[in-house]
């Protein structure tokens, strides 16, 4: 058992909340695979940071942000579907990242290591995650309208392209800060799984977004606690816990539907 670090828990909670909240929109926009692919782009960024001796988080953030801008630009200007862009560009990023990352650091880059997080990184994560949540809350209404119909959103005064770009920047930020908790391979799951779990419960919008954020906290903090108890890497445990929450929510919702059908019969 490793000594429990409050910095690790605070970082996990902030990342879990931010990723869950941002992810609630990503699932509704059917961009689950984009989140996953963007997370892979963080790897060459981390590698460049490690090779050149600056903070790998900054490298990851710069690469993910560039990928997000490219996605937005190609989608809007070439009218190419997002999944096609991912197929062309992002798998390449993973391959290049694996080739560039020094071998001793590869495992940590791929699966994260939240146990090593210090005070400064924790504070930076909390500030960034709070900013992401606040800005996401500001654009939530516009994003929902854009999901159901971009023209409808435009008629209500929403600047659809701008809001979409802002959202991609938020996703990039949350992916970059999430890398330290679950690593580049699994950070996509931290964004998607809590939201997918919340969606199975079939609630309305506000409880859905709140539950998504809380599920994110539960899986990130729970996975980190288990990693300290069992002395293993937190990333995979966070993801497994998220999927356990997903299955539990699904079962709970199915039981609720069965009960409702019985009452009607």
């Amino acid at each position, binding site marked *: 058992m490793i000594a429990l670090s409050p910095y690790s828990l605070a970082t996990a909670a902030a990342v879990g909340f931010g990723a869950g909240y941002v992810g609630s929109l990503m699932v509704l926009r*059917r961009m689950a695979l984009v989140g996953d692919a963007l997370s892979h782009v963080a790897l060459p960024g981390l590698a460049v940071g490690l090779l050149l001796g600056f903070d790998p988080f900054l490298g990851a953030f710069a690469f993910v942000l560039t990928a997000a801008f490219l996605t937005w630009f190609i989608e809007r200007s070439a009218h190419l579907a997002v999944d096609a862009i991912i197929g062309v560009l992002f798998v390449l990023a993973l391959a290049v990242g694996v080739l560039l990352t020094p071998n001793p650091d590869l495992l940590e880059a791929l699966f994260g290591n939240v146990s090593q997080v210090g005070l400064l990184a924790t504070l930076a994560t909390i500030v960034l995650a709070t900013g992401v949540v606040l800005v996401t809350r500001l654009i939530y209404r516009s994003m*929902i*309208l854009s*999901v159901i119909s971009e023209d409808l959103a435009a008629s209500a005064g929403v600047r659809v392209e701008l809001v979409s770009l802002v959202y991609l920047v938020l996703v990039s930020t949350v992916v970059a800060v999430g890398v330290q908790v679950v690593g580049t391979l699994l950070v996509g799951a931290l964004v998607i799984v809590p939201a997918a779990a919340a969606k199975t419960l*079939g609630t309305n919008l506000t409880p859905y977004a709140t539950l998504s954020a809380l599920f994110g906290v539960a899986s990130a903090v729970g996975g980190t606690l288990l990693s300290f108890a069992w002395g293993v890497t937190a990333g995979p445990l966070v993801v497994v816990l998220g999927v356990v929450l997903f299955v539990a929510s699904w079962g709970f919702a199915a039981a609720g539907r069965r009960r409702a059908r019985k009452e009607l019969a």
Partner: protein
Amino acid sequence: MGGRPVERPQEGTNLNGLRRKLMSLPSVPVLTVTDVTVRAGPLTILDHVSFRVPRGITFAIVGPNGGGKSTLLKVLLDRIAYTGRVEWDGPVRVGYVPQKLVDTDIPLSVEELLSLKCRGDYAACLSMVGLDQRILKKTIGTLSGGEIQRVLIGWATVDRPDVLLFDEPTSNVDIGSEDAILQAVKSVQVETGATVLLVTHNLHELHHYADRVLVLQRRVRFEGTVAELLSNPDRVSETFGIPPGEIPPFGIGSRR
């Protein structure tokens, strides 16, 4: 949306005299479209389209598939690049009802959908389109196509717009729901006095609900009253793709 400033009566003016003077003038158009062209690569989708929409009427836009009807609505919503001029008469609020929603599999109740636009009297809004307020608590994914269209009409009217744009509001609903939707459109117009721009494929809709009509096939092929269009079987046949012998007999007396 901005546009030409509206002339307001000066203080101390004889209002009855002014009203008589105004009645004798042709009505001020709420929308003036001048020379609008839209291109997508080598294709010209709208070619120097010009027309005016008088205030308070139902103005139908008809034409074959690919004729540019939905593109014209996107121009009016300022969603695509175009050349030419689109002028609204003063600052106008525009409500828009799309053909269908891109995605309804989201945890969004009708009440939440309406609240995304503004706070208002949702129950009154829904009653105008023939829906009970119990629908407010339902999520949009559980509604029928007809119910969604009527909720969208309610959504478009909740902030009392001056102009309502409808993009083929009945194209994705069953025949039984068509009349309910069109009655909802009509009652909204009567209650709010809004100008309605109705893109349609449907001759029945045109005959029963529109006052003036624009036939669009990349260019403006015809603009005039519905009666003028319907009195020309060849043009009706060309516009709606119906053989001349199969055009239903229209009597203006049957208009609702």
